[in-house]
């Protein structure tokens, strides 16, 4: 029976002499999603990615990609995986196009693929320039173009926005978001920047000191901050009654009330109260922010 996971690791560990960068990792990545692999610097993200690509041998545990064990079906699996690990790899003395042609030769795919990926990453005009003359953003895009050659089913990107200016970050973010939607590619992206992951990922895995602390939907992560809606309204008792009637748990606090509801409901609640002639003087979102949740999980890692 086919597993529902595109990537699944069981008890994945990597040990060096007196250091365990990855410890009993259980990752689950679904087809068609953008999976954010989040953790502070030195958390074990790159070591994990290197193991997923067969660059490093795990000390224990297993990796299944496309329902097959990586150690046994490495070449078959990697023929459907595109990757960029840390900084992009390119031969600076060759042009962008020549770099991509090298990968085409190794993948046994027609050279026409080069034009397709250059178009996706918007590098067509700079394809005949030497790669060493590219800006950092262009080099990152060249790295992503290399990863896209051969129409992979899975794209693994390790900190793809590292060192980019805001415009470059925006460009890469747009590229990543369009991958599942327009090209049917599942994306596994690592970052130490919470905001980056929050903006592109559907699901998230949080790693710290080699251990997976959380894995689930982004909305589940937000819920860990126990969000609530803070409301000041008159008359108080009538407001509480209305909210109870509409099925919202309400707690009266000093100068107002806290509603245990999804923050997205705030506008709906506001509209209904006003329609019922309640005077709303204050409406805000309370609880811990996503950043607070992440910092608490990772024990205040100073890299955010």
């Amino acid at each position, binding site marked *: 029976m086919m597993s529902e996971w595109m990537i699944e690791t069981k008890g994945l560990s990597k040990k060096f002499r007196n250091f365990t960068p990855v410890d009993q990792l259980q990752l689950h990545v679904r087809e068609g999603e953008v999976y954010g692999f989040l953790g502070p610097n030195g958390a074990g993200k790159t070591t994990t990615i*290197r193991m997923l*690509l*067969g*660059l*490093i*041998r795990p000390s224990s545990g297993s990796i299944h990609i496309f329902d097959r064990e990586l150690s046994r079906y*490495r*070449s*078959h699996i*990697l*023929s459907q*995986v595109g*990757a960029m*690990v*840390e*900084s*992009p*790899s*390119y*031969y*600076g*003395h*060759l042009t962008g196009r*020549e770099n991509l*042609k*090298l*990968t085409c*030769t*190794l*993948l*046994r795919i027609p050279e026409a693929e080069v034009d397709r990926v250059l178009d996706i990453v918007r590098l067509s005009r700079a394809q005949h320039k030497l790669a060493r003359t590219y800006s950092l953003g262009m080099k990152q895009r060249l790295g992503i173009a*290399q990863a896209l050659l051969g129409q992979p089913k899975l794209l693994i990107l390790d900190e793809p926005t590292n060192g980019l200016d805001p415009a470059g970050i925006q460009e890469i973010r747009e590229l990543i978001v369009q991958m599942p939607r327009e090209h049917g590619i599942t994306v596994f992206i690592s970052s130490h920047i919470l905001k980056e992951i929050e903006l592109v990922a559907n699901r998230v895995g949080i790693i710290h000191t080699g251990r997976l602390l959380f894995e689930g939907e982004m909305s589940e992560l937000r819920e860990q901050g126990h969000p609530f809606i803070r409301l000041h309204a008159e008359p108080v008792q009538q407001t509480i009654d209305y909210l109870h009637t509409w099925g919202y748990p309400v707690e009266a606090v000093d100068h107002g009330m806290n509603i245990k509801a999804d923050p997205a409901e705030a506008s709906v609640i506001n509209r209904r109260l006003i329609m019922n002639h309640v005077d709303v003087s204050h409406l805000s979102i309370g609880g811990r922010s996503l950043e607070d949740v992440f910092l608490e999980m990772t024990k205040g890692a100073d890299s955010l």
Partner: protein
Amino acid sequence: MMLLRVLQTEWAKQRRSLLPWLVIGGPLIFAGMMWVDLYLRYSYLSGRHPELTPWELLMQEGFMLWGLFYPIGITIIAALVHYREYHDHGWKHLLALPVTRSSVYTAKWLLIWLLSCVTVILLLVCLYATGRILQFPEHFPLGQYVLYGINLCIAALGVTSLQHWLSSRLSNSLYAIAIGLSGSIGALFLAQSEITRFVPYASALFAMTVHNEDQWLTIVTGLIAGPVLLLVGMAEFRQRDIS
């Protein structure tokens, strides 16, 4: 075939690099030195070795110097082939592609060895041209020179395997070059000992085909050290963590 595809890309990576110039320039400069040597000292040398023809004298004069330069040249070729991967962070991209590590290791080895063979062919052509320019009256001893070339190509096997592994292992190419340089210079002394003359760096010193009864040392060392060191290096490379 995977190996040929990898070899093709390895050669393509060297476009616009220093490597083709080294392969072409090395034998040309060496032949130029030989021309100067024989142009200035031919009368003296032929007086010292009246039993040798001019062509044999040319080989006799050059073999020691080439025996030193040749392993150094292979050392530099190996370092340049691997420098690309380390300098451009190429290993992690290359080995995350659906190619086997064995094919990558073998393709790089083949490129280094084939380029060293190209230098030998160019050397022979340049030495022939040198003799013609110096107007040697005798017939060119093609068989003797071709055999010398074959011996040199076999001598390259051991050094290629050794320097290939060192260059793949040491991210700083200068360390691999320093070891190769020390080995090549040290070989001049090691070749004089019954025990240490089997060191791969010394192989080229026994490749000469003019009145030399030790050619078997080149053949034995090259044919044993080459494949053995290649397989040992490949075994280590296949297990290596790519950081």
